[in-house]
C-alpha cells in the first residue's frame, strides 16, 4: 500500500470517529485520589508525592475549585486546594529558601519522616500569578535527575501556600521553580532558585 493510500485510510478513520471530549482540569487529581486514596499502606512510596490536606473529597467540590482556578487565571490544569493557616502544620526539621530576580521568594519546610514520606510546606511570596494556560512547578535535583515535586499557581497577591510530601529517603542538591506552559515543551523558565 502506498503512503498516499495509507494516509487516506488514516484520514478516513480520523473523520469517522467523534472528536474526543476535553478532560476537565481537576479530574486527574480527583481520579488519582479516588483510586489511590483508599490504598492506604498498600501504596508504594515514590520520590515526590503530593498530598492535598484534604485527603479525600468529592468531585463536586473539585469541580467548583477548578472553576475558581480558571477564573483566577490559574494554570489550565489547576485544581484549587485551599491550604490555609499561617503556621506550619508540622515541626520543621529543615528548611530551604528560594529567591527570584524580581523579588519573589519562597521557603520550603520539611517535617519529620513518617511512613516513608516527609511532609513539605511551600510558601511563595511576591510571585506574580501565572496567566491562563501557565503554571508554576517546583523541581528538585536528585542525584542529577530533575524531579518534579509540586505544581501550583499564586493568588492575585502573589502568595501561595502548598502542602506536599516527598519520599523520606530523597536527598536533593538544589531546588528551583519554573514557569511552565500547559502542554508546552520542557523546560520552563526558572523564576525561583534555592539560595
Amino acid at each position, binding site marked *: 500500500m502506498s503512503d498516499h493510500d495509507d494516509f487516506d485510510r488514516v484520514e478516513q478513520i480520523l473523520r469517522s470517529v467523534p472528536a474526543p471530549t476535553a*478532560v476537565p482540569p481537576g479530574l486527574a487529581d480527583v481520579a488519582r485520589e479516588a483510586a489511590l486514596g483508599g490504598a492506604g499502606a498498600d501504596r508504594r512510596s515514590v520520590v515526590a508525592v503530593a498530598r492535598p490536606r484534604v485527603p479525600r473529597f468529592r468531585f463536586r467540590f473539585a469541580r467548583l475549585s477548578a472553576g475558581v482556578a480558571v477564573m483566577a487565571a490559574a494554570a489550565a*490544569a489547576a485544581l484549587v*486546594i485551599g491550604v490555609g493557616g499561617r503556621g506550619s502544620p508540622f515541626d520543621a526539621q529543615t528548611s530551604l529558601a528560594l529567591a527570584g530576580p524580581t523579588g519573589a521568594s519562597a521557603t520550603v519546610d520539611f517535617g519529620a519522616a513518617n511512613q516513608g514520606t516527609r511532609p513539605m510546606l511551600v510558601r*511563595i511570596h511576591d510571585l506574580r500569578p501565572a496567566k491562563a494556560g501557565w503554571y508554576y512547578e517546583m523541581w528538585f535535583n536528585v542525584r542529577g535527575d530533575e524531579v518534579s515535586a509540586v505544581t501550583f499557581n*499564586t493568588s492575585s497577591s502573589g502568595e501561595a501556600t502548598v502542602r506536599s510530601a516527598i519520599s523520606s529517603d530523597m536527598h536533593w542538591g538544589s531546588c528551583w521553580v519554573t514557569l511552565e506552559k500547559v502542554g508546552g515543551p520542557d523546560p520552563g523558565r526558572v523564576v525561583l532558585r534555592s539560595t
Partner: protein
Amino acid sequence: MTTAAYAIPGPIRARSSTLRRMDPGGLSDEDLLEQVATERDSEAFAVLYRRYSRAIYSLVQRVLRDHHAADDVSQEAFAAVWRAARGYRRERGTASAWLFAIARNAAVDATRARVPLVVGEAPEVPDHGPLPEAMAIAEMEAFEVHVAVDSLPDREREVIELAYYSGLSQTEISDRLSLPLGTVKTRTRTALARLSDVLEERGVTR
C-alpha cells in the same frame, strides 16, 4: 493572612531524558497494568491515566451524554482500574481492551442507575438504529483512535486535532499556530504516518 494556594498535586513527572529509574513512561500498557497490580505503583497508574484519560472520559461522556455525570463516572472508572488491576490477565487481551471494558461498564452501570426500568408495551415501530454490538465496536474503535492520537508528540497531535477535530484547513492551522505552511504539512504527514503504525498496532485496520 495566608492566601489559598492553587496547588496542583504532583504530576510526579521527570524531565523526559533525565529520569529513567522512576519514569515508567516507556512501558507498555500491559506492563503498566501489571505494575499497578503487583507493585501498587502509583506512578504507573499516573502514566496510564495520561495515556487513557481523554479516551475514557470521551467514551463515558458519549455513553452518558452528561458532562457532570461523566466526571463522576470517569473518576469511578479510574478507581476501578486501580482496584481491579489484579484481575487483568495479559493472555486474555490487551490492556486497552480491558480499560475500555472497565470504563464502558462503569458508564453503562451509571446509565442503568439513572434511568428507572419501566416495563411497558413493545414499540410498534422497530428501531432502525445501529445494533448494540455495532455500537460497541464503534465505541471501541473511537476509543482506540483517541488513545492513538493522544500518543502523538504534542506538536503533531496539535495539527491533527485542528485538522480533523476542529475542521481547519492547513492554511488556517498555519495562521492559528503561526507556523509556515510547509511545517504544518510536514507535521501532518509525519503524524499520519505515525498514526498509521499505531492504529495498526492497536488493531484498527479498517
